[in-house]
């Protein structure tokens, strides 16, 4: 027995153990919820487990937040990865808390186990030290995510979303894998450190970068790989859609920024060119498509494309602008969750399916309804998303714009400012609909 404890895996110092603790807590949460689901525990058990263990993980990360970087078990944990872990856990708690998932799916409580897996994968993703881990963690996230998207098995939309997400996700994995293969072909390694030392320029390197970026853009819903987002956001259960929009982008953004900067790929100018083209395209395309949507959730998906497009050049420029990007995505994700929470509440107050969709036209305030707290929160959040000061969305946007400008991406900033203007039209229009009763004299 003593030999077992002296074996390699347990040769961890106390500090290293602390680094691993949050991940272990998440794994424990997964185990507990699987057991609970097998033994058919009541919904209360899942609520408790979820809040308690995710809360514990947050605390465990928060305690070691400012410790120095650590390499262990093939992972590279840093302040960034801990922050990503904390934020993803917060998003997860918020998502299943706000959307009342536990009661809704009390007959099929496996969702909690899947959620734990998602959070675990998302917090592991930025710790990758080579492209293979990157790919594995991304897939590790995708599988439970597919299931969660299709969790409303009785709704056609949900199943349609699952199928679309699955097919397009597989396609994106193939692109990413192709990129990794080309990288290996070019440099003979997939390790970040080795690549930073040796990655010859040429047609092969450009192709490798293109494919790698394509796979990542897919998860970030950046054009031209954004087409799956509206269907998935529209079809998935509201809480899942919120978590996908908020958590995935944050984690993938930080992981990609780390990867491109550790490998030194950001020094290859063609990467920035690809990113700027994709980013500009998403800003323009996303703005127009969001503007013309009749469905609220599709509108949110396209606006997500616009926001992610602004981040594309920051993503490939490495550590320098990672803090502004992470801050932006944190604010963005929190706003999306805050929007979809009251949204589903309002929808269910109207006696409709809270996971269903709604035409913005039907948001028009009824004469009998006053302005409720949820409409107030919702419209404040929409103003924040539009980037109107003094709401947090403004500061986040301001920060990434000034980072972009500092890197010389002035055209992206100008496009971003124009998109902000269009955003007013499509966000504020909806914020107005909650308050402005139609064709009725109220005052003077």
């Amino acid at each position: 027995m003593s030999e077992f404890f002296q074996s390699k895996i347990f040769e961890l110092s106390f500090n290293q153990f602390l680094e691993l603790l949050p991940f272990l807590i998440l794994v424990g949460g997964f185990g507990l919820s699987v057991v609970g689901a097998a033994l058919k525990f009541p919904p209360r058990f899942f609520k408790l487990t979820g809040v308690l263990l995710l809360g514990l993980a947050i605390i465990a990360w928060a305690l070691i937040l400012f410790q120095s970087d650590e390499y262990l078990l093939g992972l590279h944990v840093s302040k960034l990865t801990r922050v990503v872990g904390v934020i993803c856990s917060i998003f997860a708690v918020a998502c299943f808390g706000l959307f009342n998932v536990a009661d809704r799916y009390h007959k099929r409580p496996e969702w909690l186990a899947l959620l734990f897996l998602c959070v675990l994968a998302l917090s592991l993703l930025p710790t990758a030290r080579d492209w293979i881990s990157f790919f594995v963690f991304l897939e590790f996230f995708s599988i439970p995510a597919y299931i969660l998207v299709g969790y409303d098995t009785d709704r056609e939309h949900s199943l349609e979303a699952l199928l679309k997400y699955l097919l397009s996700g597989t396609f994106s994995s193939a692109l990413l894998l192709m990129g990794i293969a080309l990288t290996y072909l070019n440099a003979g390694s997939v390790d970040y450190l080795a690549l930073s030392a040796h990655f010859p320029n040429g047609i092969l390197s450009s192709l490798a970068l293109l494919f790698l970026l394509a796979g990542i853009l897919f998860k970030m819903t950046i054009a031209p790989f954004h087409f799956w987002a509206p269907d998935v956001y529209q079809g998935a259960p509201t809480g899942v859609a919120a978590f996908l929009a908020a958590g995935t982008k944050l984690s993938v953004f930080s992981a990609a920024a780390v990867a491109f900067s550790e490998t030194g790929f950001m020094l290859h100018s063609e990467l920035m060119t690809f990113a700027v083209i994709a980013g500009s395209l998403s800003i323009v395309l996303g703005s127009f498509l969001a503007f013309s949507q009749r469905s609220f959730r599709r509108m949110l998906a396209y606006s997500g494309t616009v926001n992610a497009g602004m981040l594309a050049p920051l993503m490939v420029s490495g550590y320098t602008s990672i803090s502004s990007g992470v801050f932006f995505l944190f604010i963005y994700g929190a706003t999306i969750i805050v929007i979809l929470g009251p949204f589903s509440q309002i929808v269910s107050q109207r006696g409709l399916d809270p996971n269903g969709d709604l035409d913005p036209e039907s948001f028009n305030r009824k004469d009998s309804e006053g302005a409720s707290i949820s409409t107030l929160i919702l419209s404040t959040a929409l103003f924040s998303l539009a980037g109107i000061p003094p709401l947090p969305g403004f500061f986040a946007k301001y920060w990434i714009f000034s980072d972009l400008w500092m890197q010389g991406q002035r055209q992206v900033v100008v496009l971003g400012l124009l998109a902000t203007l269009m955003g007013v039209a499509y966000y504020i229009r909806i914020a107005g609909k909650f308050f402005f009763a139609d064709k009725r004299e109220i005052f003077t």
Partner: protein
Amino acid sequence: MVKVLLWPLVSALVLSLLPRNKWAQWGNFFLHIPWIVFLVALIKVTPVGNAFGLEEVYGSLPVFKSTLALGADSLNVSLVALTVFLSFSLSFYFLNHPKISPGFLILFQLLNFGTVGSLLAADAFVFYVFWEFMLIPLFFLIGVWGSENRVYAALKFFAMTLAGSLFLLGGIFFIVTRTQVQSLEWLEISRNSAVLSATAPWLGWAFLAAFLVKIPVWPLHTWLPDAHTEAPTAVSVMLAGILLKLGIYGMLRWVLQLFPTLYWNTTDWLFAAAVIGIILGSYGALRQKDIKRMIAYSSVAHLGFVVLGLAATNAAAQSGAFFQNFAHGLSTGLLFLCFGMIYDRTHSRKLDDYGGLATSNRFLAFAFVFACMASVALPGLPGFVGEFLILSGTYLQRGWWVLLPLLGVVLGALYILQLVKTLVFGKVSPLMQSHSFTLKWNEVAAILPFLVGLVLLGLAPQLLLAWTNGSIPVR
């Protein structure tokens, strides 16, 4: 200084605890009293001048290179005083008004917060935040409490002003990222203004764009008639009374003082835009059948006069412009308020529906005619002082070109006299016959401060002129 700024916010919080209309209306009234006290205390310590003689720093935001600084001098504190004055007068009007709910008053106080904040801000970033913040309460005030076409008006107003402000934001980005300027504090920018103008001659234009929309200068004025017409009375008063003034203030503070070379180079353009604004605004007002729209177009013309004064490079025109700016807040504010009281009873804005107000209510008719006369710049009223200074200053600089804006004065007299003739005199129209025009005490109390203010400024313009004399930078 920070007390004057934060009090509206505190008021909004207090108002949110008062659930009933009546409580909130009286609460709003009494909450103005400490605000006035704070304002008087601020006026006492405010130095005459234009360079933030009094500045207070409350910390900094290094990420944005911003300093949380507030500044006061006679240029901005005079306008803060105007804000408080208008808001206090309106708080009388709100009493016993059936449609004024706590929500309205909260938004109204938030609007005051944004207004005072952008007046007192001594840092470009802080200024921008407050400048944009004003849009949110205004959007809801117009959109929820406005008349038929309010949603369109609110969106148009929001989008156009935001479009202008984004240029300002772009300018701020440029200063932060591409220059050696250490912070966005106003003093720091003005210290470096020569370097900034040399590295980026267009920077002043970016700042100017935001203010040209807000003033509004022709051809960017199209949001104003819609917003003015659809907004509830109190918001129309605030729009005319203080929000348009903010555009002029911004031009003086953030363009003229920071980028003087660029500014003096644009004066010919400003002159042209102002003249077109005056003539088209007056002509537009002449053609209107909708009374609020008519007043709104008259605002475009009056603000044209203010810009005309700013476009001249001598002291007479410049201080005249600031004076006219101030006077317009009172005269047009009173016009909107008087018509608002009529509209509260009849619910019609059509000119043809009216007639014989003088028979229905003498006091209201008197106040209305008084406001109209102030609007056409009758001698003895402040508009005369302002326009006289502006036109004489323009004559000094541009010679006989002054005849063009003078034509605007004639047109102005035409539409205003037509309005007075139809609405106040003549036979009592059927619509007016069917409503009672007895004013409540609080409505009279809301009108009186305007009358007093107008007479005071008209007979003793030096009260304001002497105070703000040093605050207008001259070439």
